[in-house]
Structure formats: structure tokens, C-alpha cells
């Protein structure tokens, strides 16, 4: 194995200015953020950046020699798509280091208007193979693609070996079991999806029902799960509820778990992954600080001594407190995944 593999960039979420600073202060190489509107796929109330906070955040990151990425990762909707064009204009004007785009029509706009602007292909583009990625490279000179969380490590390597485009993978955070950009479950239940509105299972549709026996979690009236007394209740993300199939009631689609690739870091470095992404723009600055610090340590250790790398109990402890449903998984990177 080449000993000179550069360490992948650690790319951390910034849902707010304090979260951005927490990421920078704790060792993120890069932070990613979105604007306060439906041009970004984490469009939650009270989150994201306006012009002033974006400028302050970018100043802070650049002062510490870190990079800032702007996510414009919803699909431009319908007849008037000026909102999305303005978001790209704004990103170029702010001086972000790259813009992350899902919609190839927007990639074309960005490339035409801002020939120097670095473009990344969002995970929402659903590019799971190198032919798709190479198409975007030929047409728009994209420099990096974020892979949906559905490939095995061997499949990730296959992509890396067949493209000039840098490859970014998800390393930690809430796990989407579906191919990003190809999941409409949220709009089927509520009318709003990540592709169209930048949200999944939006909070305004959530109702908690306190019954005598159980606590019900509903999304637009649909019962996503119910919890007996003493059972920990989770947010009703609709793929993470318990449902009944042929008489069995279970997590039919997905348990509430978090992805954690820490155990695989040496292999991830070895196959030439360019960046590891942490999910969580809707999470607190304290969460971002803790995850960033832990992954920074682990990544540095894996880079120093890949042969002798092992996951330290302290790291596992730190992350398991933050994991959704208190469980962690290697997800699709690990083949026998049910």
C-alpha cells in the first residue's frame, strides 16, 4: 500500500454559526452550510445562514485555513427557478470554496456564469456509479462527487479507480437507508420531500399522542411508531418507524441507527477516498464539536499507523452517546447488511 496516501478531508456540518466555529475549532478541514431557504436539503426552521452569518462564518474558517462549501442541493422547481440561481450567485459572491449541487441544470448555470467556481456533485444527485459522475465531469467539470450511502467499500473503490473526480463518502451520522435523491417517502406522507422542499419528515407534520398505554408518533396523521412506557421514543422519521408486514411488527425498513465508519478508516484511506463527510446540520454545536474532535483523532491515528490502527474505547464511547437510537452500524460499506 502506498504510504503517501493523503488523509481524506474531514468535512463537517454547520447548521449555524456556533456549529461552524465548533467544527473549525475541533479539527474539521472543511465545513458545509446552506442558506436559509428551500435551496438546501436541510431546510429546517431556525437553521442555516443569511448573508451576514455566512460572511462571518467564511471569514472565520478562512482565517483558520479551512474550507467552506455551500450546499444548494434541492432540485430547482418549476417555472421560476431564479431562487436557485440567486443562491449560486450568492455563493460565488461570498467566496465559498465550492458549491455542492444536485440538479444538473443548476450545474450548467453555475459553470456558464462562474467558470472559476469549484463544483461538487451532491449526494442528492444519486450518482452511484462512475459513468454518472463522469458525465457531470465532462459537462460541468465537477471536481468532487458525494456518494449515496448505498455502496460497499469495494464498489466505492471501483468508482474511485474509474474517475478523475474526487470521491467523498459519508462517515458518521444519521443513516439514510434509501438512495439520497431517489426517496419520495416524505412527500408521499406529507407533500414535502428532500428533492422538492429540502426536508424529510418535516417537524410541522409531527404530532405526539399521549395515550394511557403508549405514546404515538404521527406524521401527517400516519402512525409511524408507538412507544410503551419507559421505551425511548425517537423522532418519527418515516423510514425509521415500526410497521406491520404479514403479521410481524418490526422496523420493516430501518432501525434508528447511526452510521459510523471509524473501524474502516484505514481501508477508506487506502482506496483513495478524498473526503469523509459527517452528517448533522440539524444538530447542536456541542454535537458537532464532539463528533469532529473524535473523528479528527481517529483519522489522524489511522493516517499515522494504518497497520496498527484500532478503534479506541474512548472514541466509541464519545460517539455512541451521540448516535441515533444508541446503535451504530457500518451500513452498506459492510456487505452482509440486512
Amino acid at each position, binding site marked *: 500500500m502506498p504510504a503517501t496516501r493523503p488523509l481524506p478531508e474531514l468535512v463537517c456540518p454547520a447548521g449555524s454559526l456556533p456549529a461552524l466555529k465548533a467544527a473549525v475549532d475541533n479539527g474539521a478541514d472543511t465545513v458545509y452550510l446552506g442558506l436559509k431557504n428551500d435551496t438546501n436539503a436541510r431546510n429546517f426552521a431556525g437553521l442555516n445562514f443569511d448573508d451576514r452569518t455566512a460572511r462571518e462564518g467564511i471569514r472565520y474558517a478562512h482565517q483558520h485555513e479551512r474550507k467552506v462549501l455551500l450546499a444548494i442541493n434541492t432540485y430547482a422547481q418549476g417555472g421560476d427557478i431564479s431562487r436557485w440561481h440567486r443562491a449560486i450567485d450568492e455563493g460565488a459572491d461570498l467566496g465559498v470554496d465550492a458549491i455542492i449541487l444536485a440538479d444538473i441544470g443548476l450545474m450548467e448555470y453555475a459553470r456558464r456564469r462562474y467558470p472559476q467556481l469549484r463544483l461538487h456533485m451532491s449526494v442528492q444527485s*444519486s450518482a452511484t456509479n462512475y459513468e454518472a459522475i463522469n*458525465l*457531470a465531469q465532462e459537462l460541468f467539470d465537477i471536481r468532487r462527487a458525494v456518494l449515496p450511502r448505498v455502496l460497499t467499500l469495494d464498489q466505492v473503490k471501483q468508482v474511485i479507480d474509474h474517475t478523475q473526480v474526487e470521491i467523498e463518502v459519508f462517515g458518521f451520522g444519521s443513516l439514510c437507508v434509501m438512495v439520497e435523491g431517489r426517496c419520495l417517502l416524505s412527500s*408521499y406522507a406529507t*407533500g414535502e420531500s428532500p428533492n422538492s422542499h429540502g426536508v424529510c419528515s418535516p417537524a410541522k407534520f409531527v404530532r405526539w399522542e399521549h395515550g394511557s398505554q403508549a405514546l404515538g408518533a404521527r406524521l401527517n396523521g400516519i*402512525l409511524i411508531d408507538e412507544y410503551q412506557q419507559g421505551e425511548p421514543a425517537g423522532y418519527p422519521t418515516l423510514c425509521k418507524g415500526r410497521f406491520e408486514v404479514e403479521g410481524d411488527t418490526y422496523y420493516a*425498513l430501518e432501525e434508528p441507527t447511526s452510521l459510523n465508519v471509524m473501524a474502516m478508516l484505514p481501508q477508506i484511506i487506502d482506496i483513495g477516498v478524498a473526503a469523509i463527510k459527517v452528517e448533522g446540520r440539524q444538530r447542536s454545536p456541542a454535537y458537532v464539536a464532539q463528533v469532529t474532535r473524535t473523528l479528527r483523532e481517529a483519522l489522524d491515528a489511522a493516517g499515522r499507523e494504518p497497520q496498527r490502527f484500532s478503534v479506541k474505547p474512548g472514541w466509541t464511547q464519545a460517539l455512541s452517546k451521540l448516535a441515533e437510537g444508541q446503535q451504530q452500524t457500518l451500513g452498506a460499506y459492510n456487505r452482509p*447488511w440486512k
Partner: protein
Amino acid sequence: MNTLQLTLGPVLFYWSRDDILRFYSEAADWPLETIYLGEAVCSRRQQLRGQDWIALGKELAESGRQVVLSSLALIESESDLRRLRKLVENGDLQLEANDLGAARLAQQQGRPFVAGHHLNIYNADTLALLQSLGARRWIPPVEMDRDTLAAVLQQVSSKGLNIETELFAWGRLPLALSARCFTARHYNLSKDDCQFRCLEHPDGLRLNTREQQAFLTINGIQTMSDGCHSLLPHLADIAAMGVKAVRISPQWQHTEHVVAGYQQAIQALNSPLRPDIDLAPYADSRLVDGYWRGEAGIAAIGEAHAHS
């Protein structure tokens, strides 16, 4: 006013070879402009292989139908890509590209293609881009509502884009794809040893909420709606907007009755008669049209607006 055409989408479920061949021998006589065929969902489903689909497609093409090969929507491995290349290089039949990689291969071969609904075309700029790559027809995302589509089509005509529109108009809605197989999971099997249990569920597996509300359908790695999406009540509007074709998604039983009902409704568009066509008996779940009306997709036909 152009007359709406009827198309038959690819079979999204896993049926045995004999059942597939029987289905298409019947479908060859239905009033369809285009028949789409091929495995669009799961690479492990190989009752028919690429060459078999191509051969079947050529046979159907002789019956005077346009035939289009639908590509796999989730392309993960090199063997998926190899199969895709074979489909694209077959030389005779066009491709429905359900992935950008498929669009690229079709473009490299200089072959016109249909841009499937998985390509996520939500605006006229993106549509124009796909058209420049060789798309001659597109299927909007199934979640797109009427007003958004109307706005896009208005721009299509003002830009003078030469591209046809086909709408997913009947069937369980394909909503999500995963690396994980939910049918295998249901049987406590690993995906690589799924024992092809999808064959036992020719319309998928119904997923209910804990209070027995029918909600979704498990179809291997695909998650679909339980509700049967039906645009039948909206055909006059759809035709007036300039949509070229509406797609019927095959189901285990009664597909022929659904096709006949749509055909009757389309013929009636140009006459003062308004036949009362009820297709509910041919769906084994509730009829929904929420997406078209800008609502949650699960909203039943005629159901008033659900407020958050």
C-alpha cells in the same frame, strides 16, 4: 388537441419467466403506443437476462408497438454497468435511462433515449440539458404536481424544445430505492442470499402502520406506495397541457382492464360523452392522486386538503 397515447411501463415486480412471457403475449394486443420492458429495480432479478429482454422487445416491436428497454435504476457494480452497456448497444431498441450513467452511455452511442422519472427533472433548464444529450421524451418525477408541470411545459413550448412528455398515470408509485432489500429483511435473509422471495409477492408486500392503515409496499430494494395512483379523473386537463402519453404500471391482475378503461376515457375526450369509468375494482388498494393536486401523495381521489 393531440390524442393522448397509452404506454405500458416496465414490470416493477419480480415475476417468473413464464408469467412475464404470458403477460407480454397478451399485452401485444392492447391499444398501446409504447411498451417499456426490462428489469428496472433489482440486479438479482434474472428470470430474464438482458439478451432475453432484447429478444422479447424485438418480437413485440414486430407487433407495431414502439418498444423501449428500461434500464436498472440503481447501478452500483461493474456487472450492473456491463449489463447496461449491453442494453444500450443492442442496436435496435431505444433505452429508458433511469440513471445519469445510462444517459451518458446512450449519448456516447448517439442514441435517442427516454429520460425516466428517476432522473429528477424538475425544471425546463434541466430538461433542455437532457434533451441536448439525446432525450426525446421525459417522464416527470412522480411527485411533481400539476401546476409545476404546467409551468415547466409552458417553458418547454416557449423555448421550442422538441421533447415529449409521458406521465406515470396508474399503479403503485415507485417511491424509493435502497441498497438494502426489505423483502429479504422481512424473511431474515441477507440480501445476497435472498432466495428470490420476491417471486412470492407478484404485487409486492403490504406494509401497514401499527393501527392497520395500509401505507407502503415492499418490493425488494424498492419501496412503493400502497395506494394506487390514478390520474384517470384528470385526463382532459393532462391532454390540454400538451402531455403526449400516460403510463400504466403493470400489476399482477387486471392490467388489461385498466388499459381498456384508460383507452375508453381517452377516446371520450374528443366527444361530448362522459362515460362513467370506474377502475377501483381493478386496484387492490385505495386510489390516490394527491401528488397531482399538490398534496401528500397518499391523499385519496377527492380527499380534501390535509392541513399540517
